[in-house]
């Protein structure tokens, strides 16, 4: 492990976080809230510590895959620990574990909360929660790649691999720094468009800013107890729904649009399947909900909002979905697991992994029928390497193991099975709401300290896509030879 370099990256993370906190300071000053000083001083402290660390560049810029996995995982843990400090010291959230849970949930763009009354929070605290979604959505390490020249030397792609979502991370440009900058430019651009559209719908600047940040990172923290349901407007809710869907799309698609390669977009199997899943489940759930709502239009609206919210792993709500019929509940749980597209800000298992798995299944059965068959798994007419396919299969195995084990661990609370199981799915897929106690109108406040730490683990594991987080528990990774 190149510990010096990992330490250097952590320094940058603290520096960036300290600077980000100053945005909350500004919000606090604007709304004349006394709690601004927590952001100001903690932020300055982080800037000082981070600044001291990054003054000296490490001599050895080599970044192996394991180094970048460790650097990314530790970055996220440090980010969440430091991010919890203002919430904790201001006594907004008196317990540190709760504050940590809330921050992890923010940065991993899960959107699960332990707060029961969100509206009582200071505006600067609310802003910090929403902004953590924004920073965590595209990833803080990707941000570092965009701003720091030569970070990670010639192996900087390894850092990208550790933080970006999806089974195979590539870059479509020779310079990774330009690529990372372009991703962030698209990210900020889309967020700005949503912000403007929300303002046009009559939302105030503060709410629009927070909602746009939370949508962009596919997070789900809202500034109101009733989430987006607070805004009783078809227009606003539909804008949010459409943007949740858009942020769940592979950002490579937007690069294709910017570079005018429109034809290639229609060849993307992942995009097609994603849109088919959105359309199919929206209609299925809408039909299923017909008896719950007066008109089909209303059912369709409810269904579209929740499908995009869950599939993109955002977790915004406009209604309590607990009373929904069993079929809709089952479908929503499946959507929770599928998640968004690779290379998006969304969580979940990822549509592209599903595609690869199904093609692997087809290959397996073809081999039974034709034992000497040679079959190449292809996505978008390109070969999926054996290594990628294997890695996806193992990913599924680890994923299932984690779900099973953590469900058992959560069960010690004595809550009902729906609560236990759906809370695990909602955290590992970075969605937020599950059903029963953790339903769209519920929260995570009643779980034990231990359970909350398990959830934190799940959220980080889900956001970093299992391998980076689990690697730090593998002793060989830390050995020098």
């Amino acid at each position, binding site marked *: 492990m190149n510990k010096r370099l990992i330490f250097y990256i952590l320094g940058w993370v603290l520096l960036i976080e300290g600077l980000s906190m100053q945005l909350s300071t500004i919000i606090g000053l604007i709304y004349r809230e006394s709690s601004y000083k927590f952001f100001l001083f903690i932020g300055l402290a982080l800037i000082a510590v981070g600044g001291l660390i990054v003054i000296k560049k490490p001599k050895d810029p080599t970044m192996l895959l394991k180094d970048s996995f460790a650097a990314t995982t530790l970055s996220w843990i440090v980010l969440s620990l430091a991010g919890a400090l203002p919430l904790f010291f201001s006594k907004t959230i008196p317990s540190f574990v709760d504050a940590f849970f809330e921050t992890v949930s923010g940065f991993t763009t899960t959107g699960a909360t332990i707060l029961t009354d969100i509206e009582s929070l200071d505006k600067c605290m609310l802003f910090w929660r929403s902004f953590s979604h924004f920073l965590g959505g595209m990833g803080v390490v990707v941000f570092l790649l965009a701003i720091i020249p030569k970070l990670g030397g010639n192996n900087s792609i390894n850092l990208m691999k550790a933080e970006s979502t999806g089974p195979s991370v590539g870059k479509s440009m020779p310079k990774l720094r330009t690529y990372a900058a372009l991703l962030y430019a698209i990210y900020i651009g889309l967020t700005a468009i949503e912000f403007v559209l929300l303002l046009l719908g009559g939302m105030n600047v503060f709410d629009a800013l927070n909602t746009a940040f939370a949508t962009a990172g596919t997070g789900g923290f809202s500034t109101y107890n009733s989430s987006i349901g607070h805004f009783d407007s078809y227009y606003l809710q539909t804008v949010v729904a459409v943007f949740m869907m858009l942020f769940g799309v592979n950002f490579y698609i937007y690069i294709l649009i910017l570079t005018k390669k429109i034809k290639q977009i229609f060849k993307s199997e992942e995009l097609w399947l994603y849109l088919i899943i959105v359309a199919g489940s929206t209609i299925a759930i809408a039909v299923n909900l017909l008896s719950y709502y007066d008109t089909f239009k209303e059912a369709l609206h409810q269904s579209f909002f929740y499908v995009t919210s869950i599939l993109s792993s955002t977790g915004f709500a406009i209604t309590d979905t607990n009373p929904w019929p069993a079929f809709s509940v089952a479908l929503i749980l499946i959507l929770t697991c599928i998640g968004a597209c690779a290379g998006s800000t969304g969580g979940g298992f990822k549509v592209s992994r599903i595609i690869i798995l199904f093609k692997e299944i087809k290959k397996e059965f*073809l081999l039974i029928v*034709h034992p*000497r*068959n*040679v*079959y*190449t798994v*292809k996505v978008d*007419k390109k*070969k999926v390497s054996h290594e990628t396919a294997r890695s996806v299969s193992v990913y599924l195995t680890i994923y299932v193991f984690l779900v099973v084990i953590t469900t058992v661990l959560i069960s010690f609370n004595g809550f009902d099975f729906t609560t236990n199981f759906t809370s695990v799915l909602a955290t590992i897929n970075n969605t937020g709401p599950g059903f029963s106690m953790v339903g769209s109108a519920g929260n995570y406040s009643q779980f034990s300290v231990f359970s909350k730490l398990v959830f934190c683990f799940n959220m980080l594991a889900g956001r970093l896509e299992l391998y980076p987080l689990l690697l730090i528990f593998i002793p060989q990774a830390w050995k020098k030879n």
Partner: protein
Amino acid sequence: MDIIIVGSGRVGRTIAEHLNTEAHSITVIDEDVRALEKLSDTQNIMTIEGNGATLSVLTEANVSTCDLLIAVTPTDELNLYTCLIAKSAGVKRTIARVRNPLYTKDLPFVKDDLKLSLAINPELLCAKELTRMLKFPDVESMTSFARGHIDLIKIKVEKNSLLAGKKVAKSSNILKDGIHICTVERGDECYIPNGEFVIEEGDFISFTAPSKAAAKMLKSLGIISRRRSVLLLGGSRTAFYLAQDLLEAGIDVKIIDNDKERCFELSETLDDALIIYGDAMDQDLLLSEGIEHVDAIITLMNTDEENLVSSLYAKKVNPKAKVITEIGNLKISSIFENLPLDTMFNPKHIAGKYIMRYIKAMHNSLNSEFETVHFIADGKAVALEFRVRESSRVTGTPLSNLDIKDDLQIACITRQGRMIAPKGSDSIEIGDNVIVVTKLQGLSSLDDILR
């Protein structure tokens, strides 16, 4: 004609042998002295030892006064480069062999820049021929024009054909739009029909059609075969091209090859074909892969012996299927006649025939400006493709106002990849590709179609 052949491999030798029977003077260039000796011992040709892509060697072969250079070395890049050098050195026309599927796909883009008259891909030609045998067994021949947008198809008018007894002008009701009858062969005669010409049973008609519409039309005439599944034994390049064509036509393709690397290559490049790694001479494997139930079996393995044996086996277990056998080298051809096999083909002959046809047409119209040429009716008529590069006497005037020679027809015009079946009101514009069908010789430019 003076012809230079660069490369004395199999194809080079076959062409040299074929051309030598006609009245051409041939020079073969190769670096392999032995291969050259073997050629000059049996053929009345000149040989030069050296690299055909160098100016000094080409000058030695009198490239500047030469009519045609054919580059058929084993390397595609070298062939293209040789043609480029030769063209700069003053040769009139060049033919290059390009076999790599990826290059073949891109050739239309660069053919003009390379000033290449013709690119041949022997395996692709074989595959096209095989596709025709499988898809349209009753079609006599099929060639493509205008970068593959247009097919020239020759069919026989059968006894109960819808076309028999119809006037050409009326036949467009039966044939689809955009289809144009170019020539009618009756006995030894070849006619360029006008609208009043009556088609009779037993005639061979050649017509141009947009490639996409051709299959549809043949179907409506009832001369398309309904084969659903094809088994290819051997995964050669020909097999690859053939599989591509067949899959596109919605036919199931299964390929058996005993080279694992090759199997992986095929499975990566062919989307829906079933690739089986195994020995195509293994009876159990063939049976388990359903050789008894497929509609056609084509053997494309390395040796003629393997092809023969597996074809015989295929015919035995599946007598109903069409079996096509590749025979490339065996010289004892007389024994084949007694074997219970349907069809045999020789890939070298197909490529050789193609080049020969081109050279024959070229011989007839030296100094002409045509892009491509095809023979119809054993050379009694030709179809010439012209590119209109500048305005002339024929451009911009409705066809009905042009005084066009007898025995000559404008078969079709392609404008920006779209085909126009020319009517009297249409006119030829700059940038068009025009296909002219004629029995006349010595047509050197498009202006010559006028009286």
